[in-house]
């Protein structure tokens, strides 16, 4: 994985794991890879993964069971909230970029709805 140079790596890996949780690749109660295995997957320092898991735990998205490993939260409500939050972030980014390109709110809505409808026709 190529990392973005502007953000700490642990945050970027947190983002990948959140994506896996929200997309259902990782389900509530699933065991996360061990710190060492994930460090190998991303080719990063094991302490970077440790930090990433600690932060995810602080956000109540994962929990640790001593000696057993780290697991995805079983609180489906929390996963749903995360999904909504990530959608808001993506949308917010998109809107800001479109504004920078000079589009007005109404135009942005039209572009999105045209795009979604076209997608619908294709299917």
């Amino acid at each position: 994985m190529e990392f973005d140079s502007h953000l700490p790596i642990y945050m970027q890996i947190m983002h990948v794991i959140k994506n896996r949780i929200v997309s259902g690749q990782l389900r509530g109660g699933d065991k996360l890879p061990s710190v060492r295995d994930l460090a190998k997957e991303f080719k990063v320092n094991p302490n970077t993964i440790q930090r990433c898991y600690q932060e995810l735990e602080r956000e109540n998205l994962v929990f640790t069971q001593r000696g057993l490993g780290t697991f995805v939260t079983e609180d489906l409500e929390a996963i749903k909230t995360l999904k909504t939050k990530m959608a808001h972030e993506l949308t917010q980014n998109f809107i800001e970029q479109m504004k920078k390109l000079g589009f007005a709110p109404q135009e942005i809505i039209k572009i999105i709805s045209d795009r979604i409808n076209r997608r619908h026709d294709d299917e």
Partner: protein
Amino acid sequence: MNKIVEIKNMTKKYFTKKALDNLSLEIDAGKIVGILGPNGSGKTTLIKILTGLLRQTEGEVFIDKHKVGVYTKSIVSYLPDRNFLYKWMRIEDAGQLFKDFYPDFDEQKFAELLAFMKLEKNMKIDTLSKGMMEKLNLSLVLARNAKLYILDEPIAGVDPVARDQILDAIINNYHENSSMLITTHLVRDMENILEEVVFLKEGKIVLTGDTETLRAEKGKQIDDIYKEVFASEEE
């Protein structure tokens, strides 16, 4: 936290020229630290002092709370940047040599590392490619249960597949009670496995810190910071 390396105001002079100039450095247990700098910045001199091949002119050096000597040599596992095995040997002979030399050499671990690196015990040293040689040397060094591993340019001149295997082996053998000190020119390939970096320029530490913090502060990768710090250097 337990400190594996403590260097206090160390200077190394070759006659009148200072190779290391009033250097102070501490490395905690469980850290993988990168020593970054161009040729002639003092990296090799620093390694030679830590491995007991050279003695500092001034200052103090402790490894696991001991002055460099017989004890520290027994707990420091060093990967030199050049070949140190005889051509007539097979890989198993190299393992035997290490077993004879170092009581902390773990044969089981060595066998696992060889399997991981896809190397066979009966391969002859003089038939190995550069990448295979590098993997063998690293397997020997990591198979020791040392407190401090010193890896001098561990991925220099190897292909991308071998590089990934070497990085995986380093991550696999990372242990929270020991430390690793890695020198490299290939900052981009290595920076994500380094927890701390030390930039060495003309024998002095010009920048040091936690890699994640440095990235956040400067908004740049360590590789770009490296280029910035050493931009005026002529190699």
